[in-house]
Each structure stands twice: as structure tokens, then as C-alpha cells.
């Protein structure tokens, strides 16, 4: 198996795992983990697209930007999870959906 065919499989695999997990999990921590997996897939896709187009630096720099944004999302998400656990006493996303009342 050459590298070039591993990459698409890895991208699709990471995206698929991430999306599937986001669809089914209900624990907020797991949601954040799933989001991380999903974004890693997208990042890999950017680097791969950059190298296919011959603009490695563009792909790499976009990936770097995503790393920064992604880290912030994870940090804020985890902080929210901590507060939600304290406030509601649970991490189940169904129990904390108070938008519709």
C-alpha cells in the first residue's frame, strides 16, 4: 500500500469516526473527543490537498491555523463541560438541552 492511498483512507476514516461519534455519543467529554478526531481528519485533508496542489506551505499553514482554533475550542468546551457538570450534576447532552421549554 503506497502512502498516497493511505492518506485518503485515513482522512475518510477520521472524519467518519468523528461524525459517527458526534451522532451517537451523549457524554459531553466524549463529544469533545469526537470533535477533536473529526478536526484531525479535516487537518490531514488540508495538508494532503496542499501537497497534491504543490503548495505544501499553504496546506501546512492552514493546518497550523486550525490547530490553534481547535485547541481553543477544546479548552473552552472542556471548561464548559466542567461548569455544566457542577450546575446540572450530569454530562448527558439530552438532560442539559434547555433551549426548548
Amino acid at each position, binding site marked *: 500500500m503506497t502512502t498516497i492511498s493511505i492518506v485518503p483512507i485515513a482522512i475518510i476514516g477520521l472524519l467518519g469516526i468523528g*461524525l459517527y461519534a*458526534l*451522532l*451517537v455519543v*451523549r457524554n459531553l467529554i466524549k*463529544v469533545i473527543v469526537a470533535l477533536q478526531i473529526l478536526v484531525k481528519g479535516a487537518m490531514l485533508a488540508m495538508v494532503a490537498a496542499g501537497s497534491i496542489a504543490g503548495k505544501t506551505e499553504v496546506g501546512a499553514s492552514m493546518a497550523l491555523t486550525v490547530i490553534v482554533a481547535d485547541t481553543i475550542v477544546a479548552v473552552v468546551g472542556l471548561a464548559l463541560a466542567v461548569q455544566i457538570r457542577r450546575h446540572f450534576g450530569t454530562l448527558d*447532552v*439530552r438532560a442539559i*438541552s*434547555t*433551549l*426548548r421549554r
Partner: protein
Amino acid sequence: MIQTLILLVICLPWLGALLVWWAGDSRPRLQHGLAVVFSAAAGVAAIALIPNTVGKEAARLPLPAGGVFGWFSFTPDGLGVFLTAVAAVIGCLAVVFSVDYMRGEAQLGRYYAFVLLFIGSMTGLVLTSNMLLMFVFWEMTALCSYALISFYNDDPKAVAGGMKALIITQVGGVGLLLGAILGFAYLGSLNVDDFLQRAHLLPTTALTVAAFGFLIAAAAKSAQFPFQTWLPDAMEAPTPCSALIHAATMVNAGVYLLARFYPAFENVPYWRLSVMVVGMLSALLAALMALAATDLKRVLAYSTVSQLGYMVYAVGAGGIFASQFHLLSHSVFKALLFLAAGAVIHGLGTRDMLQMGGLGKKMPVARAVFVIGAAALAGLPILNGFWSKELVLEAGLEHGPAWIYAVMLFVAGLTALYTFRCVWMVFYGAPRSTAHAHDAGGFMRAALYPLAFGTLTTWLLAGPFSQMLHDSLPQHSIHTESTGEVALVILTAPATYLALAVVGLGLLAWWQRERLALLSEPLQDVIGLARNSFGFEAINRGIVSGVQSWAENLRDVQTGLLNWNIVGILAGLITVLVIVALGA
């Protein structure tokens, strides 16, 4: 020099706004002082700009703004400089008036900050020659008007009035943005002068869409038919703000926009006729509503809509000078009327004309200046409103259809009728309440006297004003006439005497109202319709409740469950992929 003046006239009010806000509400004297000083400085800078309009190529103030949008340039041509002077000077007088009117009110910082921001935004709006920047300033004036109308934010009526003004003027903002984007798409430039010079290069459809987009923008901003409903509700604002919105800033922007872009659109089929009809309907309906209203400020608000209708009508007829001259007259006498009304309201504590009457003896100063303003509004010689209204009517007679002219003439009579009804109900007759009333204070007089003087004299500026517009607006083909020539033309035209006769009939109708009472039976239906604002409020309410019920139904989409949201995202992704796959 000119660049500095432009920067000063825009940035001084903004700087003042920041400082007033920073001064804090615990130091009201400092806040009053700062506001007066900065608005007065802006007024002086605006007046200093007036002699600098000619030779405008050298006078551009470009700010680099990246490659895409071109230069954010400011061009002080006659139209812009004149409106800058109106905004800054009348704005300054409104601020001076506020020192008495707002004394002891809470949250002065918020009040003055928005007033000053408003003045600065308006000067920016009329001085810039970049359509994107124009849109930004346009929206800034909308925001300031919203904040000031809702100034008493514990009063639900004030908040509702502010929201209404914001939403309706947003509709207009979309029209302006549409026109600007179309211009950029086809000409590759956002510069106003480029647009005026090369508008004929646009395809007919695009030019028509842009022309009517700008008409919608102007109608929404200037409270013209069918958007006139927001202006009377804006009366919940503190009275100096009403003067600011009606005379110095806000509503003038729409007429300015039409006058500025007139050369680009004058050959668009039906555009000029539409502009004239919009002006006519606004003038007529608002005059009828003013006749039925019993709230002093609402009468003045309807009269603003009506007079703006005259200006829009003049632009449609090609009388750019007439429209701008009437704008100048109207700004002066309407600011005077509003501030005098503010003195009455402040002295009496109510806006209801049914509780006024016979106030003239208690408030001689307010009565004197209000009567001067009212006579100008009615178009009595030799006040400024007379000359400019005659110019508007003559432009309409010369270049517009006769039936619209006839309606406008009829409205001139109605104007005299409702103006004198208002004066009579407030200042003359038997007092209808025993409430204590005090006359205008020192700062109020300091604002009222210059405006009263201006109402008597600004028509003398007709000659220099037409010269200024002629010199700096080559594409508008404006004739220059000296003041004497303008006066001679008006005094020798038969139309003037026809108009005066109609105005006289209007006055006579009020004088003989008891005898005309027999006639008024069938008129009751019209008056009733006018009280209900001819159904426009009902249409507004219908739109609002429609949007609300639609949004209520849309709530079902918001499950609040994360997993369902992911399903939505996935569905969107698949849709995009399918479209890409089919398209490729």
C-alpha cells in the same frame, strides 16, 4: 487645510462623544460643557469648509483601504458641504438647547455621546465619495437614531418606536447596498463620481434595479411613502433629538441620496415619475394626518414627512437646486419649530394639544418664535419657506405632470390649514388646563433666537448657494441665479400668486371653521382614516405578526439536541457534495 477641516468636522463630534462618555454621569456640568464645546467646534469647522468647495480635485481626502475597495475618499462638493453645515450647525444648536431641556436627566453621557456620534456620522455620510463608506455612515445614523429614539428605555413606547425606526431604515439600507454592489460589479469602482459619469455603461436592468434600490433607500430614510410610519413614532425621543432627526441629520440623508445620484438615474424609464409620485403621496397623506393629530410633536412629525415629500418631488422634477434650497429652509424652520415645541413641552409637561391653549400669554418667547416657524412652514412671504416652496412648485410645474402639481398645490393649502390649527390650539384661544407653565430658559433662547433669525433670512443665500452647487456639481446642470433674480422670478410668476391664494384659502378655512362645520361631515371619514394612518399601521402590524408566527414555527427546527444538529450538518454536507458532483 481642506483635508484638516474635513477630518475635524467628522472626528471632532466623535472625539466629543468619547470624552462625554468618559466624563461619567456623576459630572453633568462637565458633560454639558464638553458636548456644547465639541459640537460648536464642529459647527465652526463646517462653516469654514463652505468657502473651500471649488476646485474639488485638490480637496480630496483619501484614506487607503486596501486594494479591493479603492480609496476611502472624501470630496467636499457643494451638496456635501452644505449638508455638513446644516448637520453641524443645527446639531450644535440642538445640543445648546439640550443643556436646559435635559438638565437633571439621568444618563446624560449616553444621550450626548449618541447625539455627537449622530452629527459626526451625518457629516461623514454627506462628505464621502465612496459608496461603501457611505453605506457604513448610513447605518451609523440608523443606529444613532435608534439609540436616541429609545433614549427613555424604560418606556415601552420609546423602545418600540426605536425598533421600528431601526427595522424600516434597515430595509432602505439594503437598497443602498444593492445599488452600490451593482455599481461595483459593473464599473469596478465604488466612487460616486465614477458611478455618475459611467452609469450609462451599466446594462438597463442593472441600472433600473440600482435606481429603484436607491429610491427605496431614500424613501425609508426620509420617511416617505410607503415607509412614513416610523417618523411619527420617533416622537418618543427627547425633543432636541427630534429636532436633530427631523432637521439636521437622518431624514435629510434620503433627499441627499436622490439629489446626489439624480444624474445617473434621470433617464431610467419611470424613475423620475416614481420619485414624484412618492413625494406627492407622502406630502398629501402626511398633511391629512397632521390635520387629524392632537399630539403637538406628531403634528410636526407629519409636517416633516409632508415637506420632505416636496423635496423628493422637486428632485423627481429635476429641480435639484429647488429641493436642496427647500431642504435648507426646512432644516432651519423645522429645527425652530421643534425646539420651540420642546420649550412648550418642557414648560408644561405634556404634548397633548387638547390640554394646551392660551399659552401665548404665559410663554411669549416660545409663541413668538413658534409663530415665525409656523409661518415659514405654511409658506407665507417673506420667510424662507415661502421662497423655497415656490421654487419647488415652479420646478414641478415646469418639468412634471400637471396633475401632480395640482395635488402639491392643494397640499400647500392643507399645510397652511394644519399649521394654523396647531398654532391656535397651542397658543391662542381659551386655556384648556390650569397647569403651571414657564417660558423658555436661557440656553433654550440661545438656540431659538439664531434659528428664528435664520428663518427670516436664509432665503437671501439663494444666489451664493446656487453658485456653489453650480461650481462643484458639473453633472447636475444647475443654473446659477443671483438672489435678486430668484426673487424676481418668483415674484413675477403667476404660479406664485396661485400658490399664495391656495395658502390663503387654507388660512381662511381655519378662520371660518365654524361655518365650514356643515361641510366637515363627509370629511369625517377622511379624518378617521387619517387617524388610523390610512391603514399603514395595520400593514406594519400584519408584517410583524406574520414574521413572528413564522419564527415561532421555525422553533421546531431547534431541538436543542446535539445529535440532531449533527444530522443537520451531515445533511448539509451531503447536499453540497451532491451539488458539486452534479455540477462537475
